[in-house]
């Protein structure tokens, strides 16, 4: 089974975030980065599938040079090789652009299964995986809690709301976005870390993928990023139960506009 794991490097959770001067994103100097948490579960799932089914795990990451740290982590944990999509033109892509570049890179790989994290901890759009599936013409399923291989097909457990689950049988090839917490991710052994050095890591730029800047042009953009403004205001209503209830309904309807 050939499994591709899409893995993103994101700002570390305990980073001290500051806005960039344009106020459109955070300042990326002076903070540390880590592997996007849901992607760690996706990687673990891929490694387990390889261990039970045989085959190969390929990591694919789009990002600047620093993303190699995330790639090396995946290789150290047991992925076999890596594709690093790196090009100055890849800065500031939206989910569509990222998916488009990845689709080009992965078409050639012809994987049996692609796994991604459910969403990224930085943008949280949960779009890259599903757009990638669409562009590659693959069936996909999201928020996956379990994967069971049944011959040339898979049966997956999807998380719905309110404690409900959905079980779906899918043919391969397919793409799954993985929910955090579905397994206990391993840590890299020191031997794995040493071995990672000699594993193939292929760099692919825009031209290698046969793409132009126009192909990747963002369809959405950030106009302003800001720290939530403090507006906490507590109001106390005086009076009897009935009065208070009426006032509350009025406020919720006309001021907060949630009713």
């Amino acid at each position: 089974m050939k499994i591709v794991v899409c893995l993103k490097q994101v700002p570390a959770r305990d980073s001290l975030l500051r806005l960039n001067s344009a106020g459109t994103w955070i300042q990326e100097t002076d903070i540390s980065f880590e592997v996007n948490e849901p992607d760690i579960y996706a990687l673990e799932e891929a490694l387990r599938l390889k261990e039970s089914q045989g085959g190969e795990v390929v990591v694919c990451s789009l990002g600047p040079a620093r993303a190699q740290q995330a790639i090396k982590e995946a290789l150290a944990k047991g992925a076999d090789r890596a594709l690093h999509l790196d090009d100055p033109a890849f800065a500031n892509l939206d989910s569509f652009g990222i998916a488009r570049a990845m689709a080009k890179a992965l078409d050639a790989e012809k994987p049996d299964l692609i796994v991604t994290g459910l969403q990224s901890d930085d943008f949280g759009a949960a779009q890259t995986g599903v757009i990638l599936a669409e562009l590659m013409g693959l069936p996909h399923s999201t928020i996956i809690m379990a994967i069971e291989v049944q011959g040339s097909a898979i049966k997956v457990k999807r998380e719905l709301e309110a404690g409900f689950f959905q079980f779906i049988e899918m043919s391969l090839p397919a793409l799954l976005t993985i929910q955090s917490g579905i397994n206990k991710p391993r840590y890299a052994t020191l031997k794995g870390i040493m071995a990672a050095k000699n594993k193939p890591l292929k760099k692919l730029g825009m031209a290698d993928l046969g793409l132009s800047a126009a192909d990747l042009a963002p369809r959405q953009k950030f106009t302003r990023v800001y720290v939530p403004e403090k507006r906490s205001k507590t109001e106390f209503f005086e009076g009897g139960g009935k009065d208070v209830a009426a006032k509350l309904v009025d406020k919720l309807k006309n001021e907060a506009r949630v009713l």
Partner: protein
Amino acid sequence: MATATATPQTLIKGGSFLIEDRSPDEIFTPEDLTDQHRLIGQTGREFMEQEVLPHLDEMEAKKPGLLRELLRKAADVGLCGSDVPQKYGGLELDKISSIIISEEMARDGAWAATLGAQQGIGILPIAFFGTEAQKAKYVPKLASAEWVGAYCLSEATSASDALNAKTRAVLSPDGRHYVLNGTKHWITNGGIADVYVVFAKVDGEKFSAFIVERAFAGVSPGAEEHKMGIRGSSTTPVNLENAEVPVENVLGEVGKGHLIAFNILNMGRLKLGAGCIGGAKHLFAEAVKWAKEREAFGHPIADFGLIKEKLGEMVVRIYAAESMCYRTTGMIDGMLHGIDQSAPDAGRQILKALEQYAVECSILKVVGTEVLDFVTDETVQIYGGYGFSSDYPIERVYRDQRVNRIFEGTNEINRLLITDMLLKRSMKGELGLIPAAQRLRDEILGAPAFEEAGEDGLLADEARLVAGAKKIVLLVAGSAVQRYLQALADEQEIVAVLSNLCMDVYGMESALLRTLKKARSTSEDECATEIAATRAFVYEAADRMESEARRALGRISEGDNLRAELAVVRRFLRRNPPDTIELKRAAADRAIALNRYPLIEPR
């Protein structure tokens, strides 16, 4: 070696920091860590969080089998064989990797001691000094933790004074065994080990090392010690009652046991120092978080100057210690570079390289353990009553860390060693302290040079102060040697002053060079906290050095001589002190913003 570090390849002589100047590019700093180093640190951290920290209470309760199980898990990750040649089941990591591992493991003292006895003083004597047959038989099993190892040097009546061991070894009449009698004391992993490296005197005279299996007749560990701290580790006596040890289990040569005993300790000291620095950084993060959450008088206590002062001082001291640690280890890696670890004499070559930096290893042992001691004490203080309560984690750390100043050579013994080793090397002509002291005399007697003008630039005043500080060491050492000659060893207080001066010089220069190196590759703005920490350390070290030098000179010299020397001390340490309160506040504020020790990226 298996990892290619970004280690500067200049070969630098041990102890030469006192008389030679280095450029920032020549030293290794934490900013030079590779991706591989970071991953090793991350694995160490995850291993601690997933496998060790959840079991601390069970460890303290001495749950049977737990330590062995944890050692097995550590071995599976590769932590037990990190310094062992690949040929014998190890990973041959560079020493930067080793100290990163030590830093992470030190989050629990009991575990750090247990693992340290296994992967350090347990395995390395055999891996470095064993015959092929001994290595093949013991090292792979120790690296995989199928067997647990221990190192038995101390006895009830001799530990600092280890060569005075009473344990005896006598060759059996048929010449096939040594028969060992005696009791080793304070043996880490004593209760769980399968293999002991035991030091004993053949015929009561020739100090020698033996590989002793627990399964040999006459070998038995005694009861567990009741200890103040690191209660989760096993510490027992090991009794040898007519223990029969085959002659092929003599380790190294009969009568040359001291080479093994002392050389192994260099590595142990380096790792203990590094571990303490790592432990201090982890603990510091707890102190900061608590200070931000705990409120008094309507404010988080982190707002108060006296709390910031503590946090700032912790940052400053950790920064200097960390800089010294990575610098030293980088030099060791530079020296080890190119040694073929599968060669039969590789062990000896490795130990020779470590011996070159024995002074720096002792410095790190003392500095690291004392920094952790300080950080722990102040963390208890920041926790207030909760620091004193056994229901909170800091109380255990306070008890656990206390032993660090006692084992791997007490800090007194290491202070004596630092000066002793430096002077011995100078006497042998290996280190040019004596000519340098002579040149200094001439300089003092000559007209004052116009050195004061000097260069401008980042930390230029601090660099001048470091240069002056080196001269202070030469001045005091020169006077002390001249006055006491061979009897200097009897003037222990002065010997210790000299060591303290050396430690401060090494700390000042290491912090300075590290900051300059980072500033060159980034910008002054991005190094603001590093610059603040460096300045605070340099000026406070200068204060300490001035007072220590006065104290020593006050005994060594008198009259006009003394007055002249004190004037020279003032001249070499002339300074316009900055506002160190502000510098430390700045360091504290940065830590408070980041929730952690701010001068190295977390793993």
